């Protein structure tokens, strides 16, 4: 190993150690937990990209309450409608955020709520249709003040 490689390695190690204290206090969901949460509701289905629109501010000043609207393209008829819309957060301590159960009587596949965001992340919305297909969209949200902090 050459001297410059050794120096580079040392720098990388130092950088890793320096970053560690910046990790959030509340443990966030691991990739495995996120995959588990999605698998639990979707089974072996792999959602396709599209048909789902997430309307959320790209910059949230306060992660304690962020308004979000999810719209799914669907005729919402008895034979072709959205059964469930799932919201997942890969960074919050728990990946599940909310599940919305709809049906042909909904008329439109459009739901709204306010959510907590622990940090800057890609929010996932998955829609499961009456024909069994699943569709997904992600939206990046930059959070300046995270939820889950104490003294709130």
């Amino acid at each position: 190993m050459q001297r410059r490689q050794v120096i580079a390695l040392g720098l990388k190690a130092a950088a890793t150690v320096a970053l560690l204290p910046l990790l959030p206090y509340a443990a966030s969901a691991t990739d495995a937990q996120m995959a588990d949460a999605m698998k639990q509701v979707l089974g072996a289905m792999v959602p396709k990209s599209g048909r789902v629109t997430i309307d959320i501010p790209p910059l949230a000043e306060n992660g304690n309450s962020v308004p979000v609207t999810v719209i799914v393209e669907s005729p919402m008829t008895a034979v072709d409608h959205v059964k469930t819309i799932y919201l997942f957060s890969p960074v919050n301590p728990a990946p599940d955020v909310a599940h919305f159960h709809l049906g042909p009587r909904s008329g439109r596949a459009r739901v709204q709520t306010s959510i907590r965001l622990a940090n800057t992340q890609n929010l996932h919305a998955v829609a499961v249709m009456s024909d069994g297909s699943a569709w997904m969209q992600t939206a990046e949200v930059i959070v300046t003040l995270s939820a889950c902090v104490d003294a709130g």
Partner: protein
Amino acid sequence: MRTARIVMPKTAKKGEIIDIKTLITHPMETGYRRDDVGAAIARDIIGQLRVTYAGTEVFRMTMFPGVAANPFAAFTTIATATGEFVFTWTGENGEGHVERTTLTVA
């Protein structure tokens, strides 16, 4: 005692898609926070909102700690006939809150 607000029209035409907005006062305590002396604050979450229209479920939402305090939910439904809407919030600790309102369909 919780306070819940429902915003929806009082009357609608048959077949019209109506917007419904709901809100209930609740801390949605996540169970992840600690108080001033470091003791864990117990989890207290509204786990479900279920809405029936003339006895049939038209909307159901399952909530987790990722839903903000004073949970808000907005959705739509088709006005079919004059009937009662029943909104039921159920807490994970067993508490419940019910609101009723009637939609008149012309």
